[in-house]
């Protein structure tokens, strides 16, 4: 199939960017969206132009690195997948596809479609862990955990830190991401000990990074490629409320 791509080009964080138009030809429907970008980049290189910079690594939906805003939706038109899992059979011959980077004050553009998501790391560093040094642990089966809790913790832990939730939110809120980690650890007995400090520190860091407030529109849940549920936000709000009560 033949397509028209409109892609955000921006040299670096300082310079302004704009959308550039590129035609691509003979795209096979078996290609992934990123493989289509590989083809386009090969074309650009052969003309001596600079290829489009985009983030990607695993190309199987687990590392959370790919991050394209495709026709107004993070990770494109299909739900429950990342950009790298999107295949060209989801498009038709003649389509025009607009591709932009994640947009949020807390995710400044590095170049073209690449953004800086290190704010997420700093939120985890503020409290997204259980303080246990290597070598301190007791036998793993000494901490039985009811399966439903373990399953819920796992579902929350499935977050890949891609930032689609932030990108889609009109307030650029990071609540879904933060609440997934808070929930995972709050659901487990090992995590309860530091629960109060954790939620407070993580929320404080989230605010400091410039993410917006959550107004419960639920767009994040729809766009999350890993199905992280809004329930986590509710749980985090409870945790935060209780933490502030016990201050």
């Amino acid at each position: 199939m033949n397509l028209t791509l409109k892609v955000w080009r921006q040299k670096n964080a300082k310079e302004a960017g704009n959308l550039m138009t590129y035609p691509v030809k003979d795209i096979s429907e078996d290609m992934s969206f990123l493989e289509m970008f590989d083809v386009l980049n090969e074309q650009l290189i052969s003309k001596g132009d600079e290829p489009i910079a985009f983030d990607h690594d695993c190309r199987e939906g687990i590392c959370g690195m790919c991050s394209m805003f495709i026709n107004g939706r993070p990770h494109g038109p299909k739900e429950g997948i990342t950009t790298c899992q999107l295949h060209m059979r989801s498009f038709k011959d003649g389509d025009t596809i607009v591709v932009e980077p994640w947009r949020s004050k807390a995710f400044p553009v590095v170049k073209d479609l690449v953004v800086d998501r290190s704010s997420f790391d700093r939120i985890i560093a503020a409290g997204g862990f259980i303080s246990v040094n290597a070598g301190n642990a007791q036998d793993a089966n000494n901490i039985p955990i009811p399966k439903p809790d373990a399953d819920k913790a796992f579902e929350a832990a499935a977050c890949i830190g891609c930032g689609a939730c932030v990108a889609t939110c009109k307030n650029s809120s990071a609540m879904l991401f933060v609440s997934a980690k808070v929930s995972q650890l709050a659901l487990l007995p090992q995590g309860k000990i530091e629960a109060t400090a954790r939620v407070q520190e993580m929320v404080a860091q989230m605010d400091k990074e410039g993410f917006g407030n959550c107004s419960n529109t639920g767009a994040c849940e729809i766009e999350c490629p890993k199905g992280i549920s809004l329930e986590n936000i509710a749980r985090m709000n409870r945790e935060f409320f209780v933490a502030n009560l016990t201050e």
Partner: protein
Amino acid sequence: MSKLDSKIPEGTLEEKWMKFRSTVPLVNPSNKRSIEIVIVGSGLAGASAASTLAELGYKVKCFCFQDSPRRAHSIAAQGGINAAKNYQNDGDSTFRLFYDTVKGGDYRSREANVYRLAEVSSNIIDQCVAQGVPLAREYGGLLSNRSFGGTQVQRTFYAAGQTGQQLLLGAYSALERQIGLGNVTMYSRHEMLEVVTIEGKARGIIARDLISGKLERHFGHAVLICSGGYGNVFYLSTNAMGSNATAAWKAHKQGAFFGNPCFTQIHPTCIPVSGDHQSKLTLMSESLRNDGRIWVPKKKDDTRKAVDIPEEERDYYLERRYPAFGNLVPRDVASRAAKERCDAGYGVGKSKMAVFLDFAAAFERYGKQQVLVLGIDNPSAAEIRKHGMDVVKEKYGNLFDMYKQITGENPYEMPMRIYPAVHYTMGGLWVDYNLMTTVPGLYALGEANFSDHGANRLGASALMQGLADGYFVIPYTIGSYLSNEIRVKPISTDSEPFVAAEKRVQETINKLFAIKGKHSVDHFHKKLGKIMWDKCGMARNEKGLTEAISEIRALREEFWKDVRVTGDANEFNPELEKAGRVADFLELGELMCMDALQRKESCGGHFREESQTEDGEAKRDDDKFAFVAAWEYKNQGSFELHKEELVFDIVHPTQRSYK
């Protein structure tokens, strides 16, 4: 004379590690604060080492090329992690895990290392659970296990199909905690491009800030290479796009010997190549072989749909050749058998380079059980099939979805098509028992070292090894070196060796830009991959390997004359990153072929066509080849082979048989 001293401690197998730990020299806490350690990599090995060494009080700098340490390729591991917990009471033990690993590695690993790995495996699970890693559980609240890779005990811990992700996020959270405490400085989007050695010892690295393009010098009393495997030398593999050999290769060129470079694991169940645009291959978990049956048509070039081929015209070749193990033969055996059928013209799909993995029998078997359970009388065949499908969906639903997403075919209606793909590299930097390379102060952990898997790695053992190295081995073994380094003050990065190392890196970068050739980096990478896959892949022979060596040399020359690297050095430039990596692959690829040529036996993942039994099975040659091949870098294209003899005191090598 061999320069290799594996430093295996005295004593019986069971005593070695215990004695070592109680007698290794320690660094006192106040000295630790002034000792700096550079860690390249934030995967399971790097993140666990960084957090643990920081917890002990060392000053750590950790590097990764992704935008966050959480995205290291360990994240993609699906199946699980082994540990000799014997929670299932099915006869597992440290000894049994040790034994299985040595045997599975086809007797090309060191007994002492493997035993230690088996010993600490239990601690890993304890540590991960304490960190909040949500491993799968039973209804009673205790941890669940599955059997994996054809072992007879259930010792594999898992978190659905996302075990690597969950373990890495655990290690990442421990790392972030130390970053928050100021004990680790994290350098994301940084690529290590050179090791700095001073008076024969590793003293730091040169890294490129991938955003600004600036070269940076970093001092360390010791340097740990935890940079993962080099499977991407084949261009197509299940590794992430950025996985590379550069860190290990630069270490090699600064004096670290490279161990068993030709030992590559080719995983039998991957989604086949769909066309020239293919950029990477996706693994379908090995667990599918527990329920799927592998077959090809008995007739060559059969173009009928799978469902239209009657039972008697199907060749279930694994069941035919290996009646005892059937579809569950080890990875190397299953991969070669698929290649054999496809090469002989029986392959399926458009490319004819695929075999079927069929669940129809599983649908029926589970369906019959289900209708009984549900009390359905006189069920129709369709009803049985539907109930069976539900069971299969429950077990492998995410994999079936993934397959459908990638291929556009529905695996509930037609069998999957699979083909082997490069997956893991057992070879890597040679290390002694302390995980130190042949350069003092330079260590290698995780997939980057050659240590524990011999010629073939068992499923669920890489995650175990990465975390063992980082959480439980290096914190002890590094003391024996650093206790002698406490008087060494941080060396100025303005000193001559740092300046010279940076200059080497700068010159390579300048050289790459200066070529201004016609072809993209990927063009060369694809060509290299094809040579490696055809001639140093699942089956190797003297003629092919000799040809490959000269083809790679020619390709390398062409690369340095004709590659086109766009953009500038002082900006974010993925093409430049790729160019540097492919330049290194072009050297490593040659060494892999040389190693494969030298090893005139078949063992594990290394199959030399000249060394096979009458019925086409791999034939080891213990008299001549029971050694680790450790290669010393001399000059471009010249390497010297050193041999570390392997001694088997406990496990007596036998020919593996799965008939």
